[in-house]
């Protein structure tokens, strides 16, 4: 791998077996005598190759079901790919969802420790960053209340606050960029822009084309599991928008 490359993906393919009829109990198998199940092969990713440089903001766009999340999950090591090779130099911080492991019955404080641990922070790190997390989330008055008493917005704020303190190295973000009310969204964006100055590598999956256009250096457009186009953000985003409007016109 060339120096300066953060992520290198070579000819990665991933397919899922989707059973025609979901039977995930022994009883159903016995009752239906369906020992040979009928499957449909869904090619989620086909021969995908790309590189992300160190310090680059890399966007991935595409319609629902085009393989964006599958690709992120492979990068995060949650899925294994059927074929191909992924090389990553650096620590991966996956944010596929905000507040992974959050438990409604626990207090905000406990949830910070729980979520922080799951995201890879040590106990000591959480303790030292705790005040800063609470401050960022603006929830100091509610921190010892149960999460179930939080509003939806408060929960994402807490989750986001932990997430930004847990990041290191390469960030994988799946639609988790701007959350909460206007004020908080501004804070999130400011935080995100700071990563650029710090030289962090970010892989961003989003449907928010404007944000992608504004913040990403390069963008990759996925279409049915294949790379339709990779290039400068403006160009690829414009293509994507055109493609969508064409499709709309075609279907009307």
């Amino acid at each position: 791998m060339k120096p300066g490359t953060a992520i290198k993906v070579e000819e990665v393919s991933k397919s899922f077996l989707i059973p025609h009829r979901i039977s995930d109990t022994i009883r159903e198998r016995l009752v239906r005598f369906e020992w040979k199940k009928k499957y449909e092969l869904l090619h989620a990713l086909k021969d995908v190759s790309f590189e992300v440089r160190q310090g680059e903001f890399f966007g991935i766009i595409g319609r629902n079901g085009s393989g964006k999340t599958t690709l992120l999950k492979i990068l995060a090591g949650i899925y294994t790919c059927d074929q191909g090779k992924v090389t990553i130099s650096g620590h991966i911080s996956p944010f596929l969802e905000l507040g992974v492991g959050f438990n409604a019955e626990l207090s905000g404080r406990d949830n910070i420790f729980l979520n922080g641990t799951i995201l890879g922070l040590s106990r000591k790190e959480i303790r030292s960053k705790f005040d800063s997390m609470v401050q960022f989330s603006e929830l100091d008055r509610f921190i010892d209340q149960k999460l179930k008493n939080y509003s939806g917005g408060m929960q994402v704020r807490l989750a986001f606050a932990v997430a930004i303190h847990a990041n290191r190295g390469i960030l994988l973000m799946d639609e988790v960029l701007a959350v909460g009310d206007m004020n908080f969204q501004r804070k999130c964006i400011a935080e995100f822009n700071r990563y650029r100055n710090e030289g962090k590598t970010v892989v961003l999956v989003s449907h928010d084309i404007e944000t992608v256009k504004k913040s990403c250096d390069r963008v990759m457009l996925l279409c049915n599991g294949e790379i339709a186009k990779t290039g400068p953000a403006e160009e690829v985003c414009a293509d994507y928008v055109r493609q969508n409007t064409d499709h709309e016109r075609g279907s009307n």
Partner: protein
Amino acid sequence: MNGISLKNNEVNPIHLWETIWMLAKTDLKMRYQGSWLGIIWVFLKPFCLFLVLNFVFSHLFFSSVPDYSIRLLLGIVLWSFFAEASMVGMMSLLAKGYILRKVCLPKWIVIISSTIHSAMAFFFNLIILFVFLFLYYRIFPGIAQLLLFGVYILLIYGISLLFSFLTATIQVRFRDLSQIWEVLLQVLFFASPIIYPITAVPENIRSILYLNPVTFLIESSRFALVDNSIPAFDHLLLFLVIYLPLLLAGIWFFNKSSVNVIEKI
């Protein structure tokens, strides 16, 4: 080449342990908060069972067995540990699927963290057992016997883990496996020497009962704690020779079968 290669992304054992502990602690909190009896439930379940069984069997069938009640209690406490740990271990991948689907964690840690809860409940029960043993029965096992009992406890935990490693990924594919296991556990409860001593079983079927690993561990524990004696080591050695490789095989099977299991959770 398949798979993913990471540089500078080595797994930190201290953090792994912190994660296991954090998940276990959350389980514990979830289980006992919001119920006003709280932690007392840990004791109540096995002791209600004990009181009923003790009432029925110590008078009806086994009045001739010396110290029947404490033997029964020891059996129940050990059995509950195995039954619970094997059950939650089996369910753990599904129970913690909402985390495994979103972050990359070694999958075996959810099995350990889920069973830790059962282990803690077991230790609380042990305290009561020892109170009975010391104060009521005035039996004071020697250091060697206590150490040996510690080994048996580890082995029961090992057996529960072995079972969990073998079944957790299958449970993801066949969700009614846990229901089947629940029924089997009831059968095994009576097929293990819990409410009766192994000596009450005719010689020719005794060896069948010993196919159940819990049988050996319960009987040996009784011998060490209640009879305050040290059994011959050849049985323990044989047990280790059989189950240690099996445990390794279980871990191997789990690693092998859990590669793509996240997609199915």
